[in-house]
């Protein structure tokens, strides 16, 4: 273990009491006059909740913003798919909620692997987020009196989740994107859709721009700015099958990592307990069923192994409601990692149902009897339809079949309290950073964090950073830009000239499936030292074989208009190949991180480290820290440590029983 000079990973936490710390801190941050903001440009990568809200808020303050997204429209970013809701400590339910309680739940839910100061700030900002979204016209669910409605979510005993049927992410994203489009119309935001980031531009050790590939023309473009914001989401697609959109990728943060932005806790990946299980080889994704269904659904399996009967034929006394049995207090509402682990365990023990015995029942029968069909449809309408469409089964007639699937990545680029990475001038927001969820994220907290980062934190801290800078002019012809562009050209040229047997004829997805399978088996719900070690070698073999045999056909056609760049024109295989190269690097780093963390915490479950009852066994003395990995040109990455201090809450064994 390396304990470093504090400079590289100093989180710059505020002094004094946690309560009000952010407001006190913000009071003293340097400002920039409106006239001078007009002279500055910020480049934002990603148009999800974090990216869109940051871009809109920065532009409202007077900055010029360039917004890069791989989508054709910012409205399509994957935040759109978030179903369940967004937490806020409003205490509208009058059930004893408070900022402090949301803070505690977040720290505890993350299994004491997040910073107290960051979690407290998040809980404090949560209420302002709801105010902002309502003012934008986000149509949250309401009670008859006209006030906002709330529901409860996994890992919490209070009702603090705001929602818009099962489409909360969509509605919040449209609110942020509409604010963004308003600034596009005002000329403050330049929208740069259909572009993939392929390289980061660093000038004198400061992030100053990006090289991206235009996904229609195929041309490489260089965009420069005074600060760069990455809000590019998570990397669950390293597992190939996940609940993420199929094009969600790690490339933006991976390229930044290779340019000096350290990667924190890469092995902290969340496997969501309630997803529609996989079937055919060509299945392209796993669809999430919001865990809000666990409010009303009861999880069970047949008490006897390999019970072949239809669920309706199994009498009550032969059903094992294993979550309720094992966790009488929280029951079906235990946090995600616990629910996933227990489900997998029961299936491995031979109780699983469905094809290959790889699913568990989520039964709405009791809720249906209690509340009626109309109430359930009003609560979950589109979710139930979606399930029916995908599986061909009606969840109000026969229980849903669900299984855990990769869903969210708590790990990401290391950032300080200002959301700045170890690469100066590079800010990282939302799922792309590693911040407040520790080793496990609570339900309905991702939307909260993305919007806190984008609406409130980054606009203040980016200003503070720029206020202290005197930067050289950097345009696309700067030597650093030409160098970054050259690196991108070399990479693309190599992929377009495949060597070896496959000659570009083996589809990139085929390699990706192989990598994904390896990762889910070794670095998924359950991990184990020797298996991780072996997987590092296997990933390296696979990477080398892709390097030697992989690649894509050059589809170049001289007649395509406006396409002189490499990988001429639209080339989805090239897009995939560029992303896969980055996944190979990340896979190695995740495995190393999982191997080095010789404890279990949250979603990171090492079989060697568990309690007698099979719960995660933390080792606070040795691993009460954030692991931040530094990329090195020659040799394996270097693991650094940022110690965590808990002054407000004493770390305890999580107990949801």
């Amino acid at each position: 273990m390396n304990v470093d000079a504090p400079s590289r990973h100093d989180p710059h936490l505020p002094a004094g009491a946690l309560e009000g710390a952010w407001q006190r801190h913000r009071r003293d941050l340097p400002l920039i006059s409106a006239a001078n903001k007009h002279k500055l440009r910020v480049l934002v990568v990603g148009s999800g909740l974090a990216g869109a809200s940051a871009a809109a808020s920065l532009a409202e303050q007077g900055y010029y913003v360039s917004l890069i997204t791989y989508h054709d429209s910012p409205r399509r970013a994957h935040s759109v798919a978030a179903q369940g809701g967004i937490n806020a400590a409003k205490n509208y339910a009058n059930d004893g909620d408070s900022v402090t309680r949301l803070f505690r739940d977040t720290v505890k839910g993350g299994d004491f692997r997040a910073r107290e100061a960051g979690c407290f700030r998040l809980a404090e900002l949560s209420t302002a987020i709801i105010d902002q979204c309502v003012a934008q016209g986000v149509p949250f669910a309401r009670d008859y009196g006209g006030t906002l409605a709330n529901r409860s979510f996994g890992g919490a005993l209070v009702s603090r989740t705001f929602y818009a049927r099962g489409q909360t992410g969509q509605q919040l994203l449209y609110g942020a994107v509409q604010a963004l489009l308003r600034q596009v119309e005002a000329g403050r935001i330049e929208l740069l859709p259909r572009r993939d980031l392929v390289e980061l531009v660093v000038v004198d050790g400061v992030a100053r721009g990006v090289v991206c590939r235009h996904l229609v023309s195929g041309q490489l473009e260089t965009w420069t700015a005074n600060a760069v914001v990455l809000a590019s989401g998570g990397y669950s697609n390293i597992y190939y099958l996940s609940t993420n959109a199929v094009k969600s990728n790690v490339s933006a943060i991976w390229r930044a990592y290779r340019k000096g932005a350290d990667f924190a806790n890469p092995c902290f990946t969340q496997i969501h307990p309630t997803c529609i299980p996989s079937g055919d080889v060509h299945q392209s994704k796993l669809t999430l069923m919001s865990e809000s269904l666990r409010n009303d659904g009861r999880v069970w399996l047949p008490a006897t192994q390999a019970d072949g009967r239809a669920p309706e034929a199994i009498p009550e006394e032969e059903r094992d409601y294993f979550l309720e049995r094992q966790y009488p207090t929280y029951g079906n509402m235990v946090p995600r990692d616990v629910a996933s682990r227990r489900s997998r365990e029961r299936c491995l023990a031979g109780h699983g149902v469905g094809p290959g015995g790889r699913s568990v029942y989520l039964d709405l029968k009791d809720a249906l009897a209690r509340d009626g069909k109309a109430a359930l449809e009003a609560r979950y309408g589109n979710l139930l339809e979606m399930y029916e469409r995908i599986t061909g089964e009606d969840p109000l007639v026969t229980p849903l079949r669900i299984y855990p699937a990769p869903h969210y990545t708590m790990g990401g680029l290391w950032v300080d309290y200002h959301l700045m990475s170890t690469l100066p001038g590079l800010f990282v927001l939302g799922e792309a950073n590693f911040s407040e969820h520790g080793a496990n994220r609570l339900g309905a907290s991702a939307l909260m964090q993305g919007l806190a980062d984008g609406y409130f934190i980054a606009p203040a801290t980016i200003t503070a950073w720029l206020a202290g800078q005197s930067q050289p002019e950097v345009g696309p012809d700067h030597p650093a830009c030409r160098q970054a562009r050259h690196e991108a050209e070399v990479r693309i040229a190599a992929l377009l000239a495949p060597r070896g047997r496959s000659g570009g004829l083996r589809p990139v997805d085929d390699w990706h499936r192989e990598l994904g399978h390896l990762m889910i088996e070794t670095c998924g719900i359950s991990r184990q030292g020797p298996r991780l070690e072996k997987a590092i070698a296997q990933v390296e073999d696979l990477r080398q074989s892709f390097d030697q045999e992989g690649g894509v056909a050059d589809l170049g056609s001289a007649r395509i208009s406006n396409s002189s760049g490499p990988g001429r024109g639209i080339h989805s295989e090239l897009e995939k190949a560029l992303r896969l190269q980055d996944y190979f690097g990340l896979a190695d780093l995740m495995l190393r991180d999982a191997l080095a963390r010789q404890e279990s915490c949250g979603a990171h479950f090492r079989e060697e480290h568990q309690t007698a009852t099979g719960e995660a066994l933390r080792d606070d003395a040795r691993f009460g820290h954030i692991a931040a990995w530094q990329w090195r040109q020659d040799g394996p990455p270097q693991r650094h440590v940022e110690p965590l201090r808990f002054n407000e809450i004493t770390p305890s064994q999580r107990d949801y029983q």
Partner: protein
Amino acid sequence: MSATLRISLRIWRQQDPSLPGGFETHRLEGVSPDLSLLELLDLLNERLIGAGERPVTFEHDCREGICGSCGFMVNGQAHGPRAATSVCQLYLRQFRDGEELVLEPWRARAFPLLQDLSVDRSALDRILAAGGYCSVNTGQAPEANALLVGRDQATSAFETATCIGCGACVASCRNASANLFVAAKLAHLAQLPQGQPERQRRARAMTERMAAEGFGSCSSQLECEAVCPKQISADWISWMNRETRPL
């Protein structure tokens, strides 16, 4: 295990708008009825790549019916034969063994073709940019419960706000009109107290931009409503006509 299917795909192929396009037929056998239509295209593309040919370009991303990326005509119907479904949620069990599916891109002047089944729908964003928002800066918001919104009104606003911007309404309209798209956004904001201050300006600006982008007029065929994956009612178009009528 259900029996496998044979499906023929007759697909519009056009490498570039400047080049002529045409249909290409591919027969796929032994496919699982549990695959989605997009997964069948994935499978076809893997075969094309293996044969050194150019894969079929189509838009897609979330594959759970919410991002609005996907969309093309299936046998002349936007998003295919199933109601309230975007094309990514169309599963092969929907089709008969041996069936031929004709896949064509959205065709509308305001949606220029990019390649094969992919078109440029950025005109929809430009309509929104003209006024599809409440002009409130970050930090200006009052306490959320200071504004009361009746439950039914909030639900109705929500339902119009669920439009995913896929463009099916435009593609299915003989005039390539974006009336349903625009009406949905106007109705979302006009039903909420937050949307009142800019209500008239918004309606005017968005309908003007719609015309400027080359979308046609509504002739009340209601195809848009029939194909809308979010089942947004075309009644909102009538409502919009009153909304935009000069006082």
